[in-house]
């Protein structure tokens, strides 16, 4: 029984870690980034290259996301900024093209082989939790996710930068009127979103393997979590990822055929009757 709970927790943690960046980017600068999956994969690939060249796993866990965040900021300046004022459809199609481009680059640079980020020796082996052997690495993933989320909540709630971000998510015009350089805020938020995606990538690397299509496969689950939790609300995302993680874990095992249909049904119900998400904190335009 403990094993099943831990399994559900782990999938929820992964979903949360990967979708949180997308949530922030939409919540604060109203950009729907279909290339978010590819940035998650970019983080994983950077992590893989570093670890295979002998960089220590933990160092890679810090460096790779920063590199992914840097790429994110450059992309935001080059591509997202010029069309920010345009209708949402254009950002969707542009980021879709971007995801096709990045997935193509993975194939071009790293080839199609399925790779694994080598797990650090300290995290190998299992831990005996009340008679159940649970891999150390998975416990590390749970712990890492909790730290990242707490850090993020602290950043948003406690710091001045966080206050600006939260204000920008409600009334952007007012914030720029108060002399805040919105360009920097959008750039910072997009960068932060990509760093979070990168962290998700490096942590998922040893577990889920690294291959060109990993990003686009996770994108759909990210959107499901986003919608159920309420677009742009962090607490909602935490609750939603728990719900979706449990539904998928139990669903895949017991009624494999229609597990995903239930998840999409949940998404449809939320969209129809609670557009602002479970905790009604979502920011729908």
């Amino acid at each position, binding site marked *: 029984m403990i094993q099943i709970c831990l399994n559900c927790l782990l999938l929820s943690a992964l979903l949360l870690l990967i979708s949180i960046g997308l949530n922030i980017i939409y919540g604060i600068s109203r950009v729907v980034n279909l290339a978010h999956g590819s940035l998650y994969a970019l983080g994983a690939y950077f992590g893989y290259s570093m670890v295979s060249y002998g960089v220590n796993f933990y160092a890679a866990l810090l460096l790779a996301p920063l590199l992914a965040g840097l790429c994110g900021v450059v992309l935001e300046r080059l591509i997202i900024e010029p069309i920010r004022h345009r209708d949402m459809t254009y950002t969707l199609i542009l980021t*879709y093209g971007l995801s096709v481009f990045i997935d*193509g680059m993975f194939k071009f640079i790293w080839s199609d082989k399925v790779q694994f980020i080598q797990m650090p020796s300290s995290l190998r082996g299992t831990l005996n939790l009340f008679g159940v052997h649970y891999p150390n690495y998975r416990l590390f993933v749970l712990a890492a996710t909790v730290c990242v989320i707490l850090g993020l909540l602290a950043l948003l709630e406690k710091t001045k930068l966080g206050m600006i971000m939260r204000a920008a998510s409600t009334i952007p015009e007012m914030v720029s009127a108060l002399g805040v350089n919105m360009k920097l805020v959008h750039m910072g938020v997009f960068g932060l979103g990509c760093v979070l995606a990168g962290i998700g990538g490096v942590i998922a690397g040893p577990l889920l393997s690294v291959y060109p299509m990993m990003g686009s496969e996770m994108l759909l689950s990210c959107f499901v979590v986003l919608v159920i939790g309420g677009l742009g609300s962090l607490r909602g995302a935490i609750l939603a990822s728990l719900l979706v993680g449990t539904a998928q874990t139990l669903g895949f095992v017991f009624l494999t055929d229609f597990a995903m249909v239930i998840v999409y049904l949940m998404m449809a119900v939320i*969209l129809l009757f609670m557009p602002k998400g479970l905790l009604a904190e979502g920011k729908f335009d």
Partner: protein
Amino acid sequence: MEKAIGNKKDRKGLVIQALVLLALVLLPFVLGNKFYLRLVTEIIIYGLLAMSLDVLLGFTGLLSFMHAAYMGIGAYTVAVFLSYVDPGASIWVTFPLGIAVTVVLAFAAGWLQVRTGGFAFALLTVAFGMMYYTLVWKARSITCGDDGLCGLPKPDISLGPIVLGNMNDSLTAYFFTLAVVAVCFFVTRRIMHSPFGAVLESIRENTERASFIGINVRNYKLMGWMLACTLAGISGVLFTYMKGSVSPTLMDARAGGIVLMMTLLGGMGTLWGAFIGAAAYIFLQDFISAMTENWMVFLGLAVILLTLFMPKGLADLPIRLGQRLTRQRSNL
């Protein structure tokens, strides 16, 4: 005065499109070999699908991520009927059946979806589209799951007793597809220029103001959705006739993204722009993937550049060229 200008421009547009249709009719005799003929047939089918999404996106202002799902439903209905019920069924049976099933399933999804708008509507189309995709994928006993239904019998094209030809022959397939798509195009064009079309455009332009002039926005959105899905169903039926095999990848999330790309590359709100978008996408993909296995890099780059520098899509090129011609002619 206002009426006169509108009609003159409208008639000139119709003449141009008739000329293009004439060119397409003569095309098979110009083309070197069968492959390009079948490629153009496929472009016309995907053009119809992209046009149906343009009716939704360019005219009613509703974004659907998974529009390919309804093409898939139309295609699968015909494929399942031909495989299990009656392989020799004539097109006068399978065509309406394909459309009927698409309309029913589209209504089921649309009736709920039109309660919302904007991004919520788009996400709902994902939810329902993926549900239909999963059903097709999972109903293994009927649809053979991911193997799809292959080697389907190609129906005869017959008007009553006279058999004009079989879909297996590329020329018949081309002309039948061109005829059906041309009819769909001109009928949709007429509908979009009608008072009903004006209502759809007003909903796109300003949904709240539309309800404040007495339009039942929800009903008209549903009608726009049903028109778009019916056209998508027709393109699905034509696809099965021509290809003779269907598979779930026809209606998955990636296919939905591709149709969206075609419509936007072509240019929204112009109906015929979607055909140019479909032609551009299929050529780009087919041409580049023959040269290098890393075609995704170039395709992604092309989409990014086109979205950034040509927001009105490829259809904008002929329009601008046309304006410059008329301007030169006027000040000569």
